[in-house]
Each structure stands twice: as C-alpha cells, then as structure tokens.
C-alpha cells in the first residue's frame, strides 16, 4: 500500500479539470486523508489551459509534492504548457485521452519515457455514459478512484450532491461516467498496484480550505468588524469571503476605490474602536505604505495581510514568491517598527492571523501578515483547531480614573498607553501623523520626538513572550540547521524528515514572527550549529539578510534562496544538507562524532 500519491492533471478551460481536482480533494479529505491541492491557469481569463495537482496521503504532508505519481492529460498541448509544474518521471503513471491521437510510445514528454502509460478513450466514454463529453472530468475521477483506490464512496457522494438540483438524467449520466472510469480501471489493472492505504487515525473528516479563506475566517473569529480593501490577485478571496460573512457578525466591508482608501477606512474604523483589517498583494502594499506609517505613529491597531506574488511591480501575479519581506519590514519612511508574521500553510494561517489581531490590539500597532500565493490559494486539509487555546485580546481602554486626566500617549513603563475612542466621554484626543506629546498635541521638540520614538520601539519588548511564534523541529543538538519561513517552511519540513531518514542530524527553525528579529531565539537555536541554510524563495534571500542585521550568524550558515515561481523541492534542500555535512566533516574531522 502506498501512503502518498501526487496526481497532476491538465486540460483546457472547459474541461473541468480543476473541479475534478476539487472533488477529489474534498472527497479524500472527507474520508480522512491529508490533502493538498494547487491549481494553475494560463494567462487567459477563460478558455485557456488549466491544471491542478492533488497530493493525498495517509499521514501529514507539508507541501504539494514533487514529481507526479499520476499524470492526467486531457490533451497534450495544454499539459505541456505547465512544464515544471507537472513534472513527469519514469515511474509516473500517465493517463491521457486516446482522442489526442498520440501513441503511448510517442508522448511529447522531454527526456523521460514513463513505463506505465494508458491511452484511455476518455471523451468517448463520457459521451457514451452521459451523452456529452462534458463528463470527461468525471470519467477521470472514476479512473483515479479505480486504479488508486481513493475515496470511491465520497466521490460518488460528492457527485450526487453536486448534481442533486439538476435533472435526474444529468445525475445519472454523471454517475455512469464515474462508473465507466472505475470499470475501465478494473479491466486494465496497473502493472504494480499503487493503491493508497487508509488514512492514519481513521476516517474522521478533515476540514478543507485555502489560505485566503481561513485567514478571513480567523478575522471573523478574532472579532474583526471592519474590512477595507481593493481587489488584487492573489489576495482577493479574503475580501470575497468576508463580503459574505462579515455582515452576519455586525461588521462592515468596504470595497474602496483603491488600496489607499481601503487602508484609510480600516485605520478610521480602528480609530473608532473596532478591530480592523485590510488585505492586498505587493502593488497594493506599496500604495498603503504611507498610511501604514500613520497607523504606527498614531498607535492604531490594524492587521494588514499581504499575499505575496512574484514581483517587482505587476511582476507575476499568479506565481508565488517571498520577496515582499523587505517591504513588509522596512517600507514606511522614518524610524518605525511593526511586527511581521508569516504563516507556513493553510492550517497555521488561522493561528497566525489570530495572533496578528492580538498583537495589533495589545501593542496598538499595525501588524503585517505575509502570506504567499502558494498557501493562500492552495486547498489543504486540516484537523479541527482547538480555538480555546487561541484567546482573543482586546485593546487596553482607559479606566474611569485614567479618563480623569486622560493622556492618549502617556509614557508608561511598558510603552503601552490606554486607548480611548470616539464616543467615550473624557477620552477625547487628537490622533495624528504629526509627532506629538503625551496629550497628542503636535510638537517639534527633538526631546519629545526621541521619547515617543523610544516608546514606540520599546513597547515591542514584550514580543519576547510570544515563544509559540517560533517552532523548532528535529534534533536539538544537531550541527546542521535550516531556518525557513512561509510556504517554503513546508518544503523544509519535508526535507528535514527526508534528511533525518538518511541519517543526517538536522534541525529546523520556523519563525512565524519575522520582525522584530528575536535575537535571543536565533542565538539559542544556533548555539550548537556549525552549518546550515536560511531557505526562502526570493532572489535576494531577504530573511537571511535581515537576520544578519541583528544576529552574528556562523559563517557556514548561508542563504539558500532563489527567485519565485519555481518552488524549491525538498530533495534540493536535502542535497544542500548532504553537501554541508560533508564540508563540515572535512572541516571539523573528529569533532563531528556522536556526542554521547
């Protein structure tokens, strides 16, 4: 029995290959499999090529997988357009529509001749079963269910549900298409069985969604009552989810005229006392820069989500990259600091977003959540989240006594001043982007500027308490280390497992809080470390550089970084680790012996 299966499928727009992937994903999740699904489209809005990858496994998985175990091509032109996104290997089972007219031994693949290839009359089967070839994707589902033993029941249930409101004939056609696929698979068994086992931990249904929707759900959970934003790929689904939900919770959503107005309205709502959020992607983030600075100096809580895509400028809107870190950390003018958090997968996007709201409210600050296209738009299964471990923080409002001689920006010990809002008698003050004194009145005094700057930096000292924003995995005494963030952390998690199976002693640090740099955490982590890599998907290796600003990294801890769109594969990281281990052994000789 296999424990892991990566299916890649491509077709043209109308083929419904993505909805087949979605059906497979949902069905597998409902049977308790761990699933990750990504999709990819050509640049056309409609009618272009489309593809998806579904990885399903009996145990936890951390990324969408590498070389395909199964490749499905409804036509080869479209399949080939996805190049490295749908990599075929010698062991890949290839399934394609016989109508393409391509001979099994003459596949248009480059440098590979897979040894199990099925030319299946998919279109014909669909037409026979349902009277139209729109059922091709359902035939494919039947083939996959048959050959790989995945989620047959759930798939059928899904089909019934989807077509429930259609005419009976349509539903029957769909069922027949599915069964035709199953039957075909039964008649043409695989040379080597590739059936996948039952999921670990039984068949309890997993939840399933993508990073954008779960981020929006976390906002609802956190008590967010205002969202101001402007559509931009790949973040728009956050606004779309909230457009459906936020009203139910007494909140409001404003699709603003641009990103500046979106964040402006969000800042206004926060000034008015409400938890507030905006979401965007790189270009929108660039536009919001000025008002992010305003929120910092006016000390207003605000969550800003940036779903990174390939940059710079319009760049590559549908591809993932982690190259907006510099911007998230450093973009506003003046001396200013704001916490920057990054989730690493769909599930932890929930906790990270809740943390973002909590930090924003507690420290009266804008907080950036740096998601990326990969996790924002991929579908992923996850276990129920224990929300009782994620309490929601409210901002520190002034007591009645404090309202007697209220000073909005009072210089307190911890740098956090009680914050009033309009409607609160006695709490009146001037919010301002201008430097101000404790009462909030404008000042041009250098001394006051220094004090207020100190306050605005010093209040973040307490971020040290947030130790659960750092995750360490692997052998605590390892000489070899990985540090990785965002979606790339998932690659490294898998690489860590692979490397340890090879016998390498490795550990991995995943920071969810990227900035301010928690120097102590890194120093502790690095104390035994002799070599390693900061792995990230940006040409410049932005986290690596930012860490250097504050932490004296060992010389052998290097940047492992590359530009976006082509994510790292776990094996690449493992190879780097192997090399580093060899280099270390040469360097240190004896000292690398086991320690006990």
């Amino acid at each position, binding site marked *: 029995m296999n424990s892991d299966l990566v299916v890649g499928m491509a077709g043209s727009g109308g083929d419904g290959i993505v909805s087949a992937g979605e059906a497979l994903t949902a069905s597998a999740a409902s049977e308790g499999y761990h699933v990750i699904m990504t999709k990819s489209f050509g640049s056309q809005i409609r009618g272009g090529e489309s593809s998806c990858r579904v990885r399903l496994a009996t145990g936890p998985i951390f990324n969408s997988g590498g070389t395909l175990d199964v490749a499905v091509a409804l036509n080869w032109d479209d399949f080939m357009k996805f190049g490295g996104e749908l990599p075929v290997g010698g062991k890949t089972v290839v399934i394609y529509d016989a109508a393409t007219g391509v001979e099994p031994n003459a596949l248009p693949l480059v440098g590979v001749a897979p040894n199990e290839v099925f030319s299946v009359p998919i279109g014909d089967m669909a037409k026979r079963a349902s009277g139209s070839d729109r059922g091709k994707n359902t035939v494919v589902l039947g083939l996959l269910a048959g050959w790989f033993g995945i989620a047959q029941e759930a798939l059928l249930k899904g089909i019934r549900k989807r077509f429930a409101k259609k005419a009976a004939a349509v539903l029957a056609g769909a069922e027949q298409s599915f069964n035709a696929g199953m039957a075909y698979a039964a008649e043409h068994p695989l040379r080597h069985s590739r059936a996948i086992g039952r999921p670990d931990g039984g068949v309890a249904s997993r939840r399933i969604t993508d990073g954008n929707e779960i981020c929006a759900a976390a906002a609802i959970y956190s008590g967010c009552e205002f969202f101001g934003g402007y559509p931009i790929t790949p973040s728009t689904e956050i606004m779309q989810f909230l457009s459906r939900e936020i009203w139910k919770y007494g909140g409001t959503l404003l699709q603003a005229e641009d990103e500046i107005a979106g964040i402006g309205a969000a*800042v206004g709502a926060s000034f008015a006392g409400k938890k507030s959020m905006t979401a965007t992607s790189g270009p929108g983030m660039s536009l919001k820069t000025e008002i992010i600075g305003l929120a910092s100096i006016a000390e207003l809580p605000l969550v800003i989500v940036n779903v990174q895509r390939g940059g710079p400028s319009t760049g590559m809107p549908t591809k993932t990259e982690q190259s907006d870190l510099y911007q998230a950390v450093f973009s506003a003018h003046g001396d200013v600091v704001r916490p920057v958090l990054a989730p690493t997968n769909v599930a932890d996007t929930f906790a990270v977003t809740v943390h973002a709201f909590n930090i924003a409210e507690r420290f009266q600050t804008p907080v950036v959540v740096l998601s990326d296209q990969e996790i924002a738009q991929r579908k992923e299964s996850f276990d129920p989240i224990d929300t009782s471990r994620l309490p929601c923080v409210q901002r520190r409002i002034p007591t009645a006594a404090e309202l007697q001689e209220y000073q909005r920006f009072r210089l307190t010990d911890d740098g956090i001043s009680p914050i009033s809002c309009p409607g609160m008698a006695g709490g009146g003050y001037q919010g301002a982007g201008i430097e101000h004194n404790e009462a909030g009145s404008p000042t041009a005094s250098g001394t006051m500027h220094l004090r207020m700057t100190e306050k605005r930096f010093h209040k973040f000292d307490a971020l040290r308490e947030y130790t659960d924003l750092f995750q360490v995995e692997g052998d605590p005494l390892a000489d070899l280390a990985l540090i990785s963030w965002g979606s790339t952390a998932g690659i490294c998690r898998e690489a860590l497992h692979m490397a340890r199976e090879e016998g390498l002693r490795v550990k991995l640090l995943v920071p969810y809080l990227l900035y301010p740099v928690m120097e102590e955490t890194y120093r502790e982590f690095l104390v035994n470390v002799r070599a390693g890599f900061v792995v990230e998907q940006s040409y410049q290796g932005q986290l690596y550089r930012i860490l250097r600003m504050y932490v004296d990294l060992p010389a052998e801890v290097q940047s492992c970084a590359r530009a976006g769109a082509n994510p790292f594969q776990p094996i690449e990281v493992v190879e780097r680790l192997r090399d580093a281990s060899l280099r270390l052994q040469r360097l240190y000789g004896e000292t690398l012996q086991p320690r006990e």
Partner: protein
Amino acid sequence: MHASGALEAKDYKSDLKPIWCPGCGDFGVLSALYRALANIGRSPHEIAFVSGIGCSSRIPGYTTAYGFNSVHGRALPIAQGIKLANPDLLVLVAGGDGDGFSIGGGHVPHAIRRNIDITYIVMDNQIYGLTKGQLSPTSPRGTHTVTSPEGSLEDPVNPLLYVLGYGAHFVAQSTPADQIGLTAVIEEAIRFPGFAFVNVQSPCVTFGDPNQQLKAHKEGLKSLAKINYDPSHRVKAMALAQTYGKDLYTGVFYRNPNPPPTFDSLVRERQRHMAPQAMPREKILDTFLPH
C-alpha cells in the same frame, strides 16, 4: 457647559491656541463651526473630526471633538471608516483645496456616490498655505506663485460643479466674512442626512490673492437666500456652480428634497437582516467541512 445643560460654543473650543496667521480666514470658519455645533448640541465626545494636512487641516485640534489630523488627502477614507465602524458618531471632515481636490480628489466621488452620512468642509483659499504659497487646484488660470512664476497654464477645478456631478445631495458655499450665513450652512450640512459638502471661501492672507480677502468677500458676496434661490434642483445648481471663481454665491446650492437612504443606514439594515445567519465565532471553521 451652560447652566441648563445645553452646550455652548465654548464647549467645543479646545485649549490649543490656533497658530494660523493673524487674519487667516480659517479663524472665522472655526468660530462658525463652534456655533453650529452648539446649535446642534451633540456632546463633543460623540463627534469625530477628521482632517488631512494643511493650515486648514489643523482645525480639529482646536475643537474638543475627537480629532484625527491624518495625512495629506486621506481624510475622507478615514472618516468613512469611522462612520461605518460606529454610525452613532457625528463625523466631520475638513481640509484645504489642495488636500481635497488635488491629492485627495480621487476619494471625493466615491464618498459621495456611497452617500455616507458625513459633512465635508473645504476651506478653499486657492493656494497651498502650509507649504508656503504654491499653486493649488483651485488657483485661477494664470496665477503666479512660487511654482508658477510665469503663470499657471491649467484651468482650475470647480469643487461645486464636481461634487454636484458626483451626485452629492447637499452642496453649499459660504465665506467666513458672513458669520451668520456660514454658521447656518454648516449647521444645515451637519443636520442633513447624507453626505454634505460645504465649500468655504476662506482667504489666505499671507499667500492668497490680496483682492480676495474677507473685506472683498463681505462686499461682493451674493446671498442665495436673498435672491430666493430654490436649491431643490440639481441641474439649476450645476448652472449656478459655473459661476465658481467669478461670483461668490453663498448659501445652499443644492439640497435634495428627498434624501435617499445613506450607505451607513443600509449597512445597518443588512447587518440586522443577516445577523441570524451568524454562527458562534469559534464555529466559523466548520464552514470548511467538505461536502
């Protein structure tokens, strides 16, 4: 506060001393505003007063309202966020001609077409005061300034015409030279249920046209009330607005006799209507159960 509990103009006056140039028109806007607020009588702490950056944008700090002296050109988006977050507040916005119609000009049509219940007062002095005398979007063609030493080559913005075109339901103009009239239009604008716009010709004594100061206004203003102008027709108002920059008509240019519902009231309705669909917040994750 007055013995009777009624609020007086001075209750809206903060301790901060205005640092406008002696003779600046903005002083007169401030005193009219104090009086208008007193007439309305909402407690200062129930008022949110937002501005951008400019001499005129300093005005919230001189009141006891919750103020937000934000960044240049973005007062309207911020104010909309405030009003939507808490529709019970009285939300005022004020700023300059540059703040409102140059850098902030892109926000005006959207605030108006949403019809959020906000009052927007522009102190239009046809110049950039705070930055010391550059060309403003309302400076007449040919104006000589430090950035247009040879005279400007572009036509000015017509704030009145623009906002009427955007569909504003209340549009007025006045001058601090007419304290009674100015107080009245500000009061009426605030009372108007919906987005209301008041363009105040508020002279800059330091960099403004010496011929367009308070004295000239006092002598030249044409009160719409006195000529029995009927402000209930948008098209007539648009025709009247064409006089901007030539004649100083004061009073209400347009007041929709049947004001449509505001965005904020529609939002409230929607919230009430959809609230029964809410799940407990911690159950939101159940949305993601497959099938």
